[in-house]
């Protein structure tokens, strides 16, 4: 292992701010998109069912 | 001449009408009735080719509208809710523009006649901005007097905002139009004396 210790790894040769700033923000953004996608899909499903029920009642 | 087959129209998630079928023949007025929001305006826009139907087809002289658009446009006069007048131009200038764009081939005398027919001679050179609501509608309707050669008139609430005299004059013009073997499709909420025997009614909300 080239890093030796977790500390070294986290330190990224002194570039921690930049490297982790990139990777973490990217991870957060991608995860955020996934969460939003799931939410949107659930809402769409619920809405479709609601409309189906309305349609049957009408 | 105009055939409508299996027409359906949706707006948002409201189905306004479906399986609508009717024909309009030469010499007929089709009066589309229905309560507010029943889809009259939407239907007229589909018939004139402005918006595509959800389903079904409109045929003009036997060809589907998708391929007969040019043919229809050469035969059509469409007058919507909106007056299509420029506030800054005078009544005469507005009509000149319309007759050039639509290819009515009207000369200055024709335009003056049309203006006289709707009783706006004294307002001929005023900018439309200062006209009253009813006078604007009349200025828009003056196009009908220029477009007498057009086979199909589609008129959305032509009588709105008109005073009693103007209503009568327009009704008389419509009678002339259809008795010359042409067609008109219109909507109105007022009881108007449309050409007897030549007027067919279509109720939209009954469907």
């Amino acid at each position, binding site marked *: 292992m080239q890093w030796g210790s977790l500390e070294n790894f986290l330190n990224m040769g002194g570039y921690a701010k930049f490297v982790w700033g990139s990777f973490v923000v990217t991870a957060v953004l991608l995860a955020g998109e996934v969460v939003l996608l799931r939410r949107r899909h659930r809402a769409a499903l619920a809405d479709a069912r609601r409309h189906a029920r309305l349609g049957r009642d009408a | 001449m105009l055939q409508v087959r299996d027409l359906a129209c949706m707006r948002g998630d409201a189905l306004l009408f479906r399986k609508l079928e009717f024909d309009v023949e030469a010499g007929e007025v089709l009066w589309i009735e229905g309560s507010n929001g029943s889809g009259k305006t939407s239907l007229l826009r589909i018939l004139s080719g402005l*918006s595509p139907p959800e389903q079904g087809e409109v045929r003009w002289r036997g060809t589907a509208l998708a391929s007969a658009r040019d043919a229809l446009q050469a035969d059509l006069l469409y007058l919507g809710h909106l007056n299509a007048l420029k506030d800054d131009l005078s009544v005469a200038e507005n009509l000149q523009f319309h007759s050039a764009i639509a290819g009515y081939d009207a000369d200055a005398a024709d335009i003056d006649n049309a203006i006289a027919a709707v009783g706006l001679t004294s307002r001929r050179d005023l900018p439309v901005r200062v006209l009253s609501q009813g006078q604007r509608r009349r200025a828009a309707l003056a196009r009908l007097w220029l477009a007498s050669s057009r086979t199909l008139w589609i008129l959305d609430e032509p009588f709105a905002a008109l005073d009693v005299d103007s209503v009568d004059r327009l009704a008389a013009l419509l009678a002339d139009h259809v008795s010359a073997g042409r067609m008109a499709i219109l909507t109105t909420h007022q009881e108007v004396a449309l050409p007897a025997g030549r007027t067919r009614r279509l109720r939209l909300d009954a469907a």
Partner: protein
Amino acid sequence: MNGSPLLAAFRRDVLQAWRRRADWLTTFFFFVIVVSLFPLGVGPEPEMLKTMAPGILWVAALLAAMLSLPRVYGTDYADGTLEQLVLAPQPLAMLVLAKTVAHWLLSGLPLALMAPVLGLQFGLEGEPLTVLFWSLLLGTPCLSFIGGVGAALTLGVRGGGVLVALLVLPLYIPVLIFGAGAVQAVATGTGAGGHLSLLGACLCIAAALSPWATSAALRVSLE
């Protein structure tokens, strides 16, 4: 006979603009004012102002062209004239072309004519000034053509005035770069020929494609 509807569309736009002189004069004054704001914001150093001048003049021209866009089809849409244009038995793209030319005459051309005077105020002289004029003369019609598409797309969309900026400004960027670049190139000694021919190419592409895109967008706006 065939040309007359186009002429009518053109004439009506010009006539209306004449009735509303304040209307297009303000496009012009907007240009002048925006250009004059910069020395106030940036400071009065002559050397810097001279370097910035082409960029500022061109950005101001972009903004002025863009501001006048909503009017091209906006009023036609609101008052129902657009329905009539679409239903007219003429090819819509030709009517669009006529209206675009009218727009350029009323908003682009005056800017090109005024620009040399403003350039003088920033210390530009001689050849750069001539090139500035020619670059605007070639570039402003591009702005009218490209802008027409944006204007048509944002019809019936509330907040259209700002949305049109968002759609159109990124598309204006090549014109800006070649236009301002031409003036800078001649100021730094390299010739402006390349830039001007690129501008000409942009104009050809825009003139060939934009009427079609615009008329498609106009049809969509009425659906």
